[in-house]
């Protein structure tokens, strides 16, 4: 969630980590041979956009489902001069993001940041930052299930064959069934895409709102699935098409509301319940984007001020938690 600002303290965190990587560990935790293996898989993944490359996933010091694939990819590509940003559901200060950022700060000593613009590597779970990425940036996704066909075809060998023959009729069945049951394509996250006109690919559970950002993105996009042991990639400027029907074209979700904190109408909004009476508030899911907009433009609608205050007082634990 997009918690109110705690930027000042986070800068202090950065300086304290700029000393050294943790003693007794190799740079970025993994040993060099493992990183080599990962880089080989990454090179192959970049060479064949959207193709799932198997790799020997290692045990990482966090449970499967918490981003073991993502941190292995990050560990393989991170260098001493990189600046790392980690987001979870768009936010820099949820547990997953805080933990992974601190993990790399300790094991590499690289600078970390919360600003999308400053980061050279952004590890993400469930979102693509709202701020457009550049050619100098790499986006690393944490992927729980890399196989887009698994719900309809449980056999891994058969799935591989379907990919090899680009036999993708099955995935349309899933979309068809969506329309039957909900009147429109109700898949709102992990919306299947075709990469470079060839491989059917899972974009990881990002909202379909972010799917258009996959298309012709300037940044290199790497996907790591630790439990399923697959790596895949979308190289810069690669066409990515979201699947649809001719009479039910792909479209992203829209909100009637603007962000209660920054007033943005373009960003992906989270709905938050702020009190016991069921009062709701819509805020940007991308916390850095929201902060930046507020810094640039201090004029926030008067109507929203109350909500912000209410929000700030309901969640003081968020601030305390991160720097504990």
């Amino acid at each position: 969630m997009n918690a109110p600002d705690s930027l000042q303290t986070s800068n202090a965190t950065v300086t304290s980590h700029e000393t050294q990587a943790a003693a007794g560990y190799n740079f970025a935790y993994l040993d060099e041979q493992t990183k080599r293996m990962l880089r080989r898989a990454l090179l192959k993944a970049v060479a064949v956009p959207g193709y799932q490359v198997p790799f020997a996933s290692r045990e990482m010091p966090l449970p499967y489902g918490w981003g073991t694939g993502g941190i292995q990819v990050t560990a393989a590509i991170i260098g001493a001069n990189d600046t790392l940003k980690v987001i979870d559901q768009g936010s820099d200060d949820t547990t997953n993001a805080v933990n992974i950022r601190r993990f790399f700060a300790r094991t590499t000593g690289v600078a970390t940041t919360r600003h999308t613009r400053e980061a050279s590597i952004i590890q993400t779970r469930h979102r693509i930052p709202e701020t457009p990425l550049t050619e100098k940036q790499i986006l690393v996704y944490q992927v729980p299930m890399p196989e887009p066909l698994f719900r309809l075809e449980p056999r891994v060998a058969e799935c591989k064959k379907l990919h090899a023959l680009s036999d993708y009729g099955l995935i349309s069945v899933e979309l068809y069934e969506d329309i039957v049951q909900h009147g429109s394509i109700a898949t709102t996250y992990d919306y299947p895409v075709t990469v470079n006109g060839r491989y059917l690919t899972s974009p990881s559970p990002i909202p379909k709102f972010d799917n258009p950002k996959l298309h012709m993105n300037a940044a290199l996009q790497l996907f790591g699935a630790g439990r399923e042991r697959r790596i895949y990639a979308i190289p810069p400027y690669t066409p990515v098409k979201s699947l649809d029907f001719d009479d039910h074209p792909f479209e992203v979700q829209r909100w009637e509301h603007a962000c209660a904190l920054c007033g943005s109408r373009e960003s992906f909004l989270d709905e938050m319940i702020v009190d016991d009476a069921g009062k709701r508030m819509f805020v940007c899911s991308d916390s850095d984007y929201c902060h930046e907009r507020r810094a640039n433009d201090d004029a926030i609608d008067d109507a929203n001020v109350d909500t912000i205050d209410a929000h700030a007082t309901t969640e003081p634990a968020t601030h305390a938690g991160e720097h504990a």
Partner: protein
Amino acid sequence: MTPLLSARSLTKQYGGRNGCRDVSFDLYPGEVLCIVGESGSGKTTLLNTLALRTEADSGELRYTSTNGDTLDLRTLSEPRRRLLARTEWGFVQQNPRDGLRAGVSAGANIGEPLMAVGARHYGQIRNTAQQWMRRVELDATRIDELPSAFSGGMQQRLQIARNLVTGPRLVFMDEPTAGLDVSVQARLLDLLRTLTTTLHLSVLIVTHDIGVARLLAHRLMVMQGGAVVESGLTDQVLDDPQHPYTQTLVASVLPV
């Protein structure tokens, strides 16, 4: 006339026994060929081998495609085989649950082969699915129900619709009426007979039911112990059986 499907000395065995051996026949366009025999005589193995669902050990298997090319099925590449199975062939399983996708609606089941060959218009797929439901005498308003909501006979008809929706020329059927009660069987057979005539289908049916063979088939092959022991026109074989096994088979049919 060139045969649609032509087998020569086709053999498929499991560790040197069972299976089927040395089967040769020609199937012509529009012809219904029935394979009868007792359990374990190799009928289903033969059918699966012909439909390229299992790899033959030896022999020749040729198919004449829509554009007139003669294809050697045993050396055909995997993508071509799949394309063939999707566009020119159908395969009706004995148990409709094997041939249907249980987790998606009847409409999606019928529409899946269409989507597999590139249909991307929801409305058209749905219309075609409804048309086919009517053709196989199912209530088209039940298009959004899961296969499990249909009775056994209806599921079988659903499976037939799913197989015929792409307009195949050759349909393999593995005991399509087994496990259905007699009146439902009769309606299904009636439907199959109508469809094969109107669509000019070539059909290979495996059955142990002489009645099914008598009603549907133009020609008959009788199998015993993996080999074809007798073949010929249906009426000829059933009215004047030559091989002792065929004689037993015909004599064992209960008189009504």
